[in-house]
């Protein structure tokens, strides 16, 4: 079981308090764009995932805590969390990830 740092509570809490919520930074097309989108683009949004072997940006939900969604970078081979960050922040750069590992 993981210990996960919630950036809103600013605390490490056990994994059972959290729900995994899939790959991060996938932008839902707005209603107008949806009508114009090709099936192939909709498929990309709906079904296609990076499924990274390595450092993965992903969403977590502190369901049994503060109830907030946030993002995390986790290495999917070691399962080690590199960093967590608040919603709205953009995908960390390679340098930010490297710094967080120090």
């Amino acid at each position: 079981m993981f210990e996960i740092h919630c950036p809103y509570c600013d605390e490490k809490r056990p994994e059972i308090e959290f729900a995994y919520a899939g790959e991060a930074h996938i932008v839902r097309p707005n209603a107008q764009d949806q009508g114009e989108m090709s099936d192939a683009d909709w498929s990309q949004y709906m079904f296609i995932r990076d499924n990274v072997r390595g450092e993965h940006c992903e969403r977590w939900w502190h369901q049994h805590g503060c109830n907030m969604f946030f993002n995390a970078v986790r290495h999917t081979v070691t399962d080690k969390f590199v960093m967590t960050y608040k919603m709205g922040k953009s995908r960390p750069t390679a340098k930010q990830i490297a710094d967080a590992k120090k």
Partner: protein
Amino acid sequence: MKYSAVSLFANALSGHKNWPEQFPDKAPKKEYDVIIVGGGGHGLGAAYYLAKKHGITNVAVLEKGWIGGGNTGRNTTIIRSNYLFDESAGIYDHAVDLWDGLSQELNYNVMFSKRGVLMLAHNVHDVQSFQRHVHANRLNGVDNKWLTPQQCKDFLPILDISEDRRYPVMGGALQMRAGTARHDSVAWGYARAASKLGVDIIQNCKVTGIKRGADGAVEGVETEKGYIGAKKIGVSAAGNSSVLMEMAGLRFPLESYPLQALVSEPVKPVLNCVVMSNAVHAYISQSDKGELVIGAGTDQYTSYSQRGALHIIEHTLMSICEIFPIFKRQRMLRSWGGIVDVTPDRSPIVGKTPVPGLYVNCGWGTGGFKATPGAADMLAHTIAHDAPHKINAPFNLDRFVGGRLIDEAAAAAVAH
């Protein structure tokens, strides 16, 4: 050498010290007609059927570790074909047909044991859903029948069918053609048989890149043992399929999750069939050695770590004890995890890819052991003809664009 009672007896006389190796350890050639990436049951089987049914023998299977060391050697070996949809009935029942004669065909005992798979219904929804499965299966000629609680108990004497249980048994669906097989033997048997037909089995040979020519078609693979050319490449890498597809510039509708299993210390025969309960969330069988073989659920997050969290197996054991209080004092011996590649509709992808010469067999997720001979046969057919067989044609990649999903996720709940 052909295995037989005579060869067993003859080797017993020399203390079983002189058995020849089952297949030779080969260094890769410069080029093959077909390269299969992944030495699990599916990949080894595909190489065997390429050689056996299609006469394509200049084939290599490249495995990054040891054959059968992936999910083939890590699964709970449940074999059944009572899925809901016509497409699934086609591919899973084809696999069971092949399981039937596999030991004879490979001259290798895969210990396919048709001990029956009993799926327990605990609420009205289960009853309706399982009966729907039974009817759908009958229309497709797939074996599956409905049992009353008393019939369940007659078949499985340790089952408690009293009505005051938290999860009473309200009936069950029994597929008698279903059962288990010896996982390692499937890999070894296919490897030995394929090797005899000229296939090179190359272990400790991780594929690190897929080379494509100017026209986009595949030309070969980069590996730990150097570059190997091939005009046709079949990828059968289970949990690592996304990684391989990315090497060819493709993104796939797959996510890889840890899935765990565990076994108890061995006990006398007590469980005569495979038992599954979707509502309580447990499945269990007993191996021929006597261990209770128990499958857990997936972890919630994607991972390639080949291990899962403790609270997942704790939850599983609570469910097992709920159904079978008799197992409360059983001690668990070992637990382990594999990485399963899950598609959005929980059905596999078996067929061509947008890259010419690149074929894929993936997305079997938590339930592809049962399909091993069928998937292997279909992958081989697709590679040999550069076109899918009618059984695997619906399991294409395009369904995630066109929307013709084969949604066994809802139909089969979580268990596979």
